[in-house]
């Protein structure tokens, strides 16, 4: 898809050969494609709004590819899973999934993966993602997983490792960082980052400042169910909204700069929220090294300035990623459909088209590392805002000894705790306060003294 990670023709052939040798199912799919319909079974883990949309877009992608490229994909929704069984059943209904293939409970995901699906879509709360991704990759499934893919540094590193394993297994892994699937951004990124159409990158800003989201009142959770139902409000499940939502922007920044940042220096606070334990805003100075800093702004509050987007400044001009410049050599694969009836399909639809296209064509596509780095970037900003410390990339990702408390930071309750039924309910409305308690140096208070009377008539 993207020029920088596209594989030479010879690599393609080798990959395809490996795939053919290792995966009987895969090969059969490939060979049957030409003549007749090939069956692909897809399952969904996490049947909330985003999950159901992803499934619909996935099914739609198969249809678009069949209509436009005659790929003859016979896509079947083979199962669903959710913490809540009724949600799984409800999501399955639209596709006539039998109720016994709609799994509920903490281990529903395992049952779904074991049920003979080829592709797994994941859209649970992100705290579960590393565990679910692990199960899917070990079982040799192709994966679409929603962003973000973890809530803490160990989770991010785990996903990177699993992504490498997936690569070895020739599994297609697509992430829900949908801007990476948006044609205008793909082309602009190729033009400015690979072809240097605007010269060197000098500085930038990314914004995800919107209105209030989710709980309006205290949630007062008592059970694990309560937490799962309101996961967007709890840092232990969402990673806080800088991770949950703003990962889109940190990922774009990493993509355009070409690397993750070296450090984060951040400010944030909880101002208005009544439910959960998240902050309301983050303002982060990401240092990308070589003098390039990106100011990341994210907020979920009503009545405030809003801005969503990116602004990267280069020697020869700036870009918002969408309006170009156009590359000399487009990384877009010409035959992949990006429009329907003259209208752009949009990133959310496109990501599933890319997944199925690469899968069926036997072309490698693996976004595990990208989305993990984008997630880790947001987590680094979060830790910095919570603590008031400058947090370095190596401290969370590469050097176990530099700051073990960051490197090993594990938000509890973990996904494992949910599976074990050992869930401790976080305290609502209690958030980290940066810095230390000692607040200033009190000075002796002067004694009250008589004030001279103002002259009569003086103003």
């Amino acid at each position, binding site marked *: 898809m993207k020029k920088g990670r596209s594989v030479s023709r010879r690599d393609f052939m080798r990959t395809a050969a490996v795939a053919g040798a290792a995966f009987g199912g895969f090969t059969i799919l490939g060979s049957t494609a030409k003549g007749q319909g090939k069956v692909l079974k897809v399952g969904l883990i996490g049947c909330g709004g985003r999950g159901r949309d992803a499934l619909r877009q996935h099914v739609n992608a198969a249809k678009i590819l069949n209509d436009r490229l005659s790929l003859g994909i016979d896509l079947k929704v083979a199962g669903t899973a959710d913490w809540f069984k009724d949600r799984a059943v409800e999501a399955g209904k639209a596709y006539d999934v039998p109720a016994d293939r709609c799994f509920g409970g903490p281990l529903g995901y395992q049952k779904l993966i074991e049920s003979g699906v080829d592709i797994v879509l994941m859209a649970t709360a992100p705290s579960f993602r590393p565990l679910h991704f692990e199960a899917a990759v070990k079982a040799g499934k192709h994966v679409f997983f929603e962003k973000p893919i973890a809530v803490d540094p160990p989770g991010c590193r785990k996903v990177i490792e699993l992504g490498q394993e997936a690569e070895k297994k020739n599994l297609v892994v697509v992430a829900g960082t949908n801007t990476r699937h948006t044609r205008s951004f793909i082309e602009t990124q190729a033009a400015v980052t690979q072809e240097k159409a605007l*010269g060197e990158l*000098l*500085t930038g*800003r990314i914004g995800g*400042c919107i209105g*209030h989201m989710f709980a309006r009142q205290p949630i007062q959770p008592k059970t694990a169910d309560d937490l799962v139902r309101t996961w967007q409000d709890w840092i232990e499940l969402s990673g806080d909204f800088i991770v949950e939502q703003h990962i889109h922007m940190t990922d774009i920044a990493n993509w355009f700069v070409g690397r993750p940042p070296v450090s984060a*220096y951040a*400010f*944030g*606070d909880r*101002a*208005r929220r009544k439910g959960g334990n998240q902050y*309301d*805003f*983050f*303002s982060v*100075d990401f240092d990308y090294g070589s*003098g390039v*800093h990106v*100011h990341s*702004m994210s*907020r979920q*509050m*009503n*009545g*405030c*300035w809003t*801005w969503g987007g990116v*602004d990267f*400044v280069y*020697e*020869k001009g*700036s870009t918002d990623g969408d309006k170009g410049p156009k590359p000399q050599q487009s990384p877009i694969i010409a035959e992949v459909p990006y429009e329907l009836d003259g209208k752009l399909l949009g990133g959310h639809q496109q990501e599933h088209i890319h997944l199925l296209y690469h899968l069926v064509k036997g072309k490698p596509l693996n976004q595990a590392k990208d989305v993990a780095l984008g997630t880790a970037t947001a987590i680094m900003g979060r830790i910095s805002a919570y*603590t*008031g*410390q*400058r947090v370095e990339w190596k401290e969370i990702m590469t050097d176990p000894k530099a700051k073990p408390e960051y490197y090993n930071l594990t938000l509890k309750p973990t996904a494992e705790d949910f599976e074990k039924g050992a869930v401790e309910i976080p305290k609502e409305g209690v958030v980290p*306060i*940066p*810095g*230390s*308690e*000692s*607040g*200033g*140096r*009190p*000075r*002796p*208070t*002067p*004694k*009250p*003294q008589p*004030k*001279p009377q*103002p*002259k009569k008539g*003086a*103003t």
Partner: protein
Amino acid sequence: MSSDLKKGLAAASSAFGAFTILGATAKGQGKGFKVGLIGCGGRGGGALGDHMNAAKRLGLDSKVVAVADWFKDRAEKVGTDKRYDVPKDRCFHGPDAYKKLLETDVEIVLMATSPNFRPVHFEAAIKAGKHAFFEKPVCVDPPGGRRVIEAGELAKQKGLSVVAGTQRRHTKGHQSAAFEIHNGLRGKIVGGRIYWCGGALWYRTRAEGQSDADYMVANWVSFTEMSGDHIVEQHVHNIDIANWYIGRPPVTAAGFGGRARRKTGNQFDFHSVDYDYGDGCHIHSMCRQVNGTAGAGGEHFVFNTTTKVEKKDLKVPEFEEIGGATQQEHADLLYSILDKKPYLNEARNVAEASLAAVMGRFATYTGKLIKWDDMMKNKDSEWYNFTCKPSAEDFEKGTVKAPPDDVAAIPGTA
């Protein structure tokens, strides 16, 4: 030098006999100026010392003739210092102490009260025909900032020299950098970061029976109405550099800030602001006063070096900096008064830096995007008329009601 400045100079030499005579006598006989200080806290005492040292350096026999402070003991403590030996009846105190000081024969007035008083004091000083050194910041709200700019124009007409306590404008390093930047030698500024992030400052709790006014004056670094919040009070230094180097004040501010650890007053503990300077140039401003957090300081600009201009014949001048910037600023004030260097009037610079900081504070307190023009031009805007209460006038009239401690602004709406 701008034609405005030249005009100001011409007006100065014709309108002020005393000015010319002083200049002449100063060179020959080591005569000096009569100096007064309004605001006798730590910075005020420091500024006075710096001023007198600078005067000595220039061969002037200046004399401190009056001091003024809200508190009697403060005024007398500085005034009766052996170096100055000001008679007690010239150590004024109380809300109108500054007026009494300005009624004396003082020629140069140094101002270092809390910044909310500055517009009133500065305007009075200029109207009374005094040269002025005034500490930064010079206002806490837009009407105050505009008042300083107007008084600065009046000073120009009257040929009065004005220097502000944004002392980075008087360091060799910053002046050389500004010279290079303004001549295009480094290329265009396309972005940057400015930081003043450190630990918590001092604070005072209210004494038993202490009046609201006394408490606020004593604990002024904790109250937005007095200090403008630390983005204004302290970070103005860095914002002034950004304005100076870029060559204009910002167009808008969008900001993020909060109160985390403070115990008294109503200020925020941190501000992180996106200043849009127009033409695609944004500056990320960061300031914090919280113990146990990572510190950061200074100004870091991003230059588009591909736009650099080569001027081989252009030499960066040798800028003077003796005794540190806080002494040099007084030397530069005296040079200007003595006509030994071009006329100096920093009122607009420091007012615009203070106003930019106020704009950032509005942005962090409300969460809104704040426009410069709404503070400076659009008379119907709430920001144009925004006045911190209690105001300096309230302190003079004795109508001060202190805002509650530990109740800070909350951005956004419920």
